[in-house]
């Protein structure tokens, strides 16, 4: 699931029951998954799922989701639920494309973050200063910001048709650089082409990462890792998290809760804005209304899937990105995925019966059987189902593992200064 649970210190006197997801376990699982993918790939002759094209598409889809999720993480760790991420992302797409066109795409990235941060500031003002319910404020922001952007888009770009602006879209901005490691990338491509067992799959995955990698993906990865260190290893982060766990306690210790909530929500907006800027500067080179397509909400889902931890959130974003990019793949690869799921579920069932969780094991084996039948009886999977898969998985995780999820204690609660008894 996620590495999040591992880093949570558990009560010392509680007997260990479930194996924890430590790094070795995670690596083992990844290795196992790789073997499974390549074995199925060999058996069916379809190597699409681990091809470099698929990987780089998945990565590309994952970035905006991860950034929205990172925004959600910052905000919720300080106790503010942010469903306005969607609106802040829109601000990011708009400002990114606008400054990207006027100045250059680098400034566009910054402008996207600034635009999102402005949305965050508004959310902080409404929820923190005025004490309005967080969800209500988020809904309002999701209505307002896209409205403003659509309006400005309509009136402003009329004069830029000569520069390539369309009726509904901004003129294109220059591209940001992509990173390709010259020798390595070609060499990996060759190996991948040979379809060796395991080796070609690894080459495909690594190749997907080192070929035409947008520099923004690197920046996003840096932000993700940096967020972990800032939030869990610095004074600033400790204070910020304390505002999400018990703001009155933090206040009693002289922490300026309003300040940290403001900073967190503004940062949250900035990350969402970066996700938006990625869409309008990297995924496309222009702004268009409705470009985000609910990715702000998906980011939120990825964060919850990841148990409010950066590592888990990255895994969640990866899952959403992977399935999202499957839409673009040939129907065959998707169909093969069914077989992989069936085998994985069967393995899970074995593990569960080994651990004497027989009910769970029976359910898993039934699911495995159903998926295998589905694989056998059909030639293709309807694409909408694939898009829906991560949402269903998130719901299932929420439903089955809610006891192991640890949202911040005061998440979503309205805090007023001096409310302590």
């Amino acid at each position, binding site marked *: 699931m996620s590495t999040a649970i591992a880093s949570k210190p558990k009560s010392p006197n509680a007997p260990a029951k479930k194996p924890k997801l430590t790094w070795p376990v995670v690596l083992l699982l990844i290795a196992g998954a790789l073997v499974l993918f390549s074995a199925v790939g060999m058996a069916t002759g379809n190597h699409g799922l681990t091809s470099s094209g698929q990987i780089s598409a998945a990565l590309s889809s994952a970035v905006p989701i991860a950034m929205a999720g990172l925004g959600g993480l910052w905000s919720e760790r300080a106790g503010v639920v942010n469903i306005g991420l969607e609106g802040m992302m829109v601000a990011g797409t708009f400002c990114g494309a606008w400054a990207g066109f006027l100045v250059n795409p680098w400034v566009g990235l910054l402008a996207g973050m600034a635009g999102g941060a402005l949305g965050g500031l508004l959310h902080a003002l409404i929820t923190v200063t*005025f*004490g309005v319910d967080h*969800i*209500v404020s988020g809904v309002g922001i999701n209505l307002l910001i896209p409205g403003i952007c*659509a309006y400005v888009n309509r*009136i402003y770009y009329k004069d830029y048709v000569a520069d390539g602006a369309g009726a509904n879209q901004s003129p294109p901005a220059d591209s940001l650089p992509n990173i390709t490691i010259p020798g390595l990338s070609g060499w990996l491509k060759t190996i991948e082409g040979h379809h060796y067992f395991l080796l070609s799959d690894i080459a495909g995955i690594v190749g997907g990462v080192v070929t035409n990698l947008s520099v923004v993906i690197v920046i996003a990865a840096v932000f993700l890792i940096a967020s972990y260190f800032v939030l869990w290893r610095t004074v600033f982060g400790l204070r910020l998290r304390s505002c999400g766990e018990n703001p009155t306690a933090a206040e009693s210790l002289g922490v300026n809760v309003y300040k940290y909530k403001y900073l967190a929500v503004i940062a949250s907006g900035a990350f969402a804005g970066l996700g938006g800027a990625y869409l309008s500067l990297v995924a496309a080179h222009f702004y268009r209304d409705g470009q985000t397509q609910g990715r702000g*909400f998906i980011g939120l889902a990825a964060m919850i899937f990841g148990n409010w931890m950066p590592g888990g959130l990255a895994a969640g974003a990866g899952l959403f990105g992977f399935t999202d990019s499957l839409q673009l793949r040939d129907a065959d690869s998707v169909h093969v995925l069914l077989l992989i799921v069936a085998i994985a579920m069967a393995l899970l069932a074995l593990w569960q019966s080994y651990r004497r969780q027989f009910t769970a094991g029976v359910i898993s084996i039934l699911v495995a059987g159903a998926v295998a039948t589905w694989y056998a009886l059909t030639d293709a999977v309807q694409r909408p189902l694939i898009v829906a898969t991560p949402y269903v998985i998130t719901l299932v995780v929420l439903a*089955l593992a809610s006891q192991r999820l640890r949202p911040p204690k005061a998440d979503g609660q309205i805090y007023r200064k001096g409310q302590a008894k």
Partner: protein
Amino acid sequence: MTSPNPEAANAAKPSLRQRIDLERIALGLAAPVLAVLLSLIIAGALLAVSGRDPFEAFRIMWDYGTASDGQVATLNKATVYYLAAAAAAFGFRMNLFNIGVEGQYKLAMLFAAYVGSQVDLPAFLQIPLLLVTAMLVGGLWASIAGLLKVYRGVSEVISTIMLNAIATAVIGVLLVPGVFAPKTNGTSNSIQTGKISESSHFFSISTQGGTLWGFVVIAALVGVAFQFTLNRTRFGFDLRATGRSESAAKASGVNVRRMVITSMVVSGALAGLIGLPELMQNTPYFGQNVQTNLGFIGISVALLGRNSPIGIVFSALLFAFLDASGAQLPTQGDFPSEIIPVIQGTIVICVVVAYELVRRYGLKRQQQKVGAELAAQAAAAAKKEVAA
């Protein structure tokens, strides 16, 4: 958590002998009026900055709104918005955030359209059949979120967001030729269900301003039933009690689990009705014509109307008027109609802030007043005791 359902019921129920309450009504009304004015000023400034005369724009809107065709268009839109807001408000009244209205109404509309295209009964059976189908589908879809909340503790905000996305996928799977859409010859790009039967068409009233949808009657019935349930029934009391304090409601004997599921289902069933005016009065099939985002507009309208069945009449009319008259802007001048969402967004944000401030001010003020009155009483009583 602060309740998103301010005491509209109280504000609507004046107690004559108390100035406090009159004050509260004044305050309650001041909030939305100021919010609307402020958003008009902001929108006006935005128009002025982009070199357009805001007064001209407002004049166009006003003229349209006072013309009979504008009024009919407004009423038709308001019907839809009212249903959407009622769906959201029903959940809000007990602190349930049904963000999933969006998915519920689309799914319900699809099923209603399919049933309507496959079944052809006499109208007096056919129309109830479609209504029931839509409500059933909406309610069932919403019940998933209710069940997850009650039995697995999953926040309904999160689960309904997921369910919205899943609903889109379900529609994608069902709305293909051979399933819910008729097998076509491949000439048309857009996939849609078959046309619903003639008997499925809801009655409408021809006016000089155009066709007024008869569905406005359904919306009115929903409103009356909502208001009555809320204020005059035990169920309504339980609902409001749970919204104000879940812990107190539980201790008082409210079966909160059942209430959560019931109100999710009712909210979803109401959401199921949202798509029907369009389907049964305008375009007789489900396809590209489906207006999106109605769920979120419904939430906004509900918030503006303080989740009160009476309040949302006005907010639905306002939002409908803005949308209907806004559509006229580009046709009568160089005004982009995109200014309307800006106005609506500003109204919602201003109004939720204003309501919160008014709520807090009102509570504090009443506490002070009661304290003062009691102190006066106590002083009088003390004097009496001394005398005795």
